[in-house]
């Protein structure tokens, strides 16, 4: 697995303008971590394909989306979120 350049942590629902901006500003070597209302992106079926996508499992489960996780999305717990934030060269909290 190649290093993640920027980890974008998105907690905004897909209809929030900041969610759109976050998705627009991602590069192929970045990572997207969906947390909070951001995990609702999983329900829209419009996940970015060029970047690695992660979702915080307690937030996924809370919103009843546990069975929607596809192969393109890696579920992570808080320990995984800590690891990701250190692996990436930098982090942007949207």
């Amino acid at each position: 697995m190649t290093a993640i350049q920027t980890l974008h942590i998105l907690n905004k629902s897909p209809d929030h303008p900041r969610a759109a901006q976050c998705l627009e500003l991602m590069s192929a070597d970045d990572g997207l971590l969906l947390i909070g209302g951001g995990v609702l992106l999983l329900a829209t079926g419009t996940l970015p394909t060029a970047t690695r996508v992660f979702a915080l499992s307690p937030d996924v489960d809370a919103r009843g989306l546990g069975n929607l996780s596809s192969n393109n999305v890696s579920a992570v717990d808080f320990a995984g979120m800590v690891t990701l934030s250190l692996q990436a060269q930098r982090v942007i909290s949207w």
Partner: protein
Amino acid sequence: MAETASESFTLVITGAPYSSQAPQTALGFAQAAVNAGHRIDRVFLYGDGVHLASALCAPPSDETHWPEEWSRFLVDHSIPGVACIASALRRGLVNETEQKRYELPAANVRVPFEIAGLGEWVEGQIKSTRTLYFHAGD
């Protein structure tokens, strides 16, 4: 599991308890970071996030008491919790020093939180390996 070098974090919480998920997500992250052997240099409350430092929150008994949970975590791990003074004073969050200075009828900052300027955030950002922000979702 391969042991990684110990790193450090500054966490900035800008979302208030009971109007956002920010304090809960930040606490989950902080606990995991400490469990992994990393250090939390500082937790900085900014904007609406300062409400987390209120000693006067009284949520229903069947709901999580986020200010209490956070206070306990900070005390247990000797982590400084700092509320931005400008954000706090505007929103009615004062310690005894500020109560006297502004001649206010009460102080309501919860132990172990302190009130200080944005310089604390700047310093944390310089010192820590990573600075993460926990915003409201709306």
